């Protein structure tokens, strides 16, 4: 495929994944030669409607207008790529599903919150078919470029499904759990980040979202056995490592 028609859309989120694309400074010209951008509000006010080959959608669905935009984009796009952890799994916005969204809104916006409606944060796949998920907070630049390159050839890339522990051990880091007795979500979390944080002695917060068969109970048990309170482990896990909706299950399993 010589040129790919693409749209980049943001739901509720920090726009960090869209920014990652703009930060591909050395590759922007090459991308511009291969991609016909139909919509990218962060970079251009020009909006072109109609069919697109690929829609990259960032953020989670937190408002009725997010859902309306998502459905509209899905209807126009041959392929829909969930861009970033919020779009893939719900991310930080979906952190604690026990909390009432209305109370959260009031806490953050006060009476100004009356101006817009919100709903419980969910990932894209709750509402529409997602063709490919590219997790990350933000997404890794190389993986984003690889995704575009593969889409140009009509396929999706193979991105790592292994946990952060794999990246971490390949870098021969000190294990923050074994050797420093910290709470690290590396074993629960999708790798492919080259273990950025543990390599700097910062425990993994799980920002790339959960591996497919994340085993929360075993992680909870062994951290608890090392004297970490269950509440601390739960809090760390809920930040990113659990997909939206897992919160209730964690409650059931651990309380």
């Amino acid at each position, binding site marked *: 495929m010589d040129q790919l028609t693409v749209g980049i859309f943001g739901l509720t989120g920090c726009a960090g994944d869209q920014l990652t694309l703009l930060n591909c400074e050395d*590759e922007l010209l*090459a*991308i511009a030669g*291969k991609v016909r951008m139909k919509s990218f509000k962060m970079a251009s006010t020009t909006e072109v409607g109609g069919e697109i080959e690929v829609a990259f959608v960032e953020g989670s669905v937190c408002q009725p207008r997010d859902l309306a935009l998502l459905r509209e984009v899905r209807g126009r796009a041959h392929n829909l790529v969930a861009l970033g952890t919020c779009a893939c799994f719900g991310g930080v916005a979906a952190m604690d599903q026990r909390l009432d969204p209305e109370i959260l809104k009031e806490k953050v916006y006060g009476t100004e919150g009356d101006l817009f409606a919100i709903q419980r944060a969910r990932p894209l796949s709750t509402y529409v078919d997602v063709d490919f998920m590219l997790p990350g907070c933000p997404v890794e630049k190389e993986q984003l*470029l*690889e995704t*575009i*390159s*593969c889409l*140009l*050839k009509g396929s999706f*890339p*193979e991105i790592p*499904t*292994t*946990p952060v*522990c*794999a990246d971490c*051990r*390949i870098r*021969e*880091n*000190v*294990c923050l*759990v*074994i*050797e420093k007795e910290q709470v690290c979500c*590396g*074993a*629960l979390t999708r790798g492919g980040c080259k273990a950025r944080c543990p390599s700097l002695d910062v425990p993994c917060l799980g920002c790339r979202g959960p*591996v*497919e*068969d994340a*085993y929360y*109970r*075993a*992680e909870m*048990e*062994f951290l608890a056995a090392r004297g970490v309170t269950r509440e601390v482990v739960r809090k760390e896990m809920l930040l990113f490592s659990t997909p939206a909706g897992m919160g209730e299950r964690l409650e059931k399993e651990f309380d």
Partner: protein
Amino acid sequence: MRVLKISRDQLKKWLDELSGTVDLYVPMPAGKQVHRFEPYTTFEELDLSYTRTVLPPKKFVFPPEEVLFNRAPSGETTVPDLPARDLVLFGVHPCDINGIRILDTFFSSFDKPDWYYQRRRARLRIVGLSCLPDEHCFCRSMDCDSAASGFDLFFHDIDPENQDRGEKVFFVSLGTVEGDIMLADRADTLPEAEPEELEALLEYTERRESAYTLDLDPSILPQAIKLHQADPLWDRLGEQCLACGVCSLGCPTCTCFNIRDTNDLEGGSSRVRNWDACLYRDFARVAGDHNFRPHRSERIQNRYYHKQVGFAEAFGKPSCVGCGRCIKLCPTGIHFVEVFQSLARERLPVDE
């Protein structure tokens, strides 16, 4: 085999010289708790009394990620070059030397030996170093506590606790002609060990043997695994295992890999192989989303079965050298030796 004597100062001079002509890698401390094989900088920085590195030397012959070939948009393919200089690994312990021997067997066992492995192996020179076991070592049980061959030179340090002693000497065994050449003209000038020094070397060997705290009988391993395939132990391990895969990644003899193609914006591509592990869910997943081993308990059992039964039946001995990395690296404390002791105790008559 001749045993020569070399002083600490002579060793330092030799390594300084050698690092000018080869790619020299040595055990280096990374923080207090872990070691890695890294490029030689200065003699003072390397740690001669290290216990084990996080990754075994397999990373030099079978790297975590390796580009097999690049394909330009024109269709022309090229294989990345390797450096022309030899790669000398100094300070390899016997378990890891045996690990490389197992890799040699495995990667040359097919109709076509693995070309990528062979070309890395051809430039690798191995200089062994003696060691004292810690609480995770069970190389003696796996008959890998010494290396009869598989090294070019081997250094014995019979006083490893005292690294800074002024008159410190090492005893050097010559393993190959290449080892002799590596020592340059020193091999002819270094004195041979005196009889009483050989005696001291033997005493050290005995001291080392009595330092092992882990023990298992490898002759019963295959039967224990085969007999107990339905044992509830595997389910318990499945409940404990996080499937993080580090036991495989850190294993000196685990060789599973994935191959994938990557693309670039210009239309070029690369074929890449990278380490994989049977503990991962995607490892045995095939078309149609069928998975031969969907549960962690099946995967962990498969790993034990493969290493102690499958490999042993195909190659005559298990693919385990007792280096203790899988024990040391497991975050949830799954203990290879205890797993076997538990299986053996339950059902097989074994002398305690």
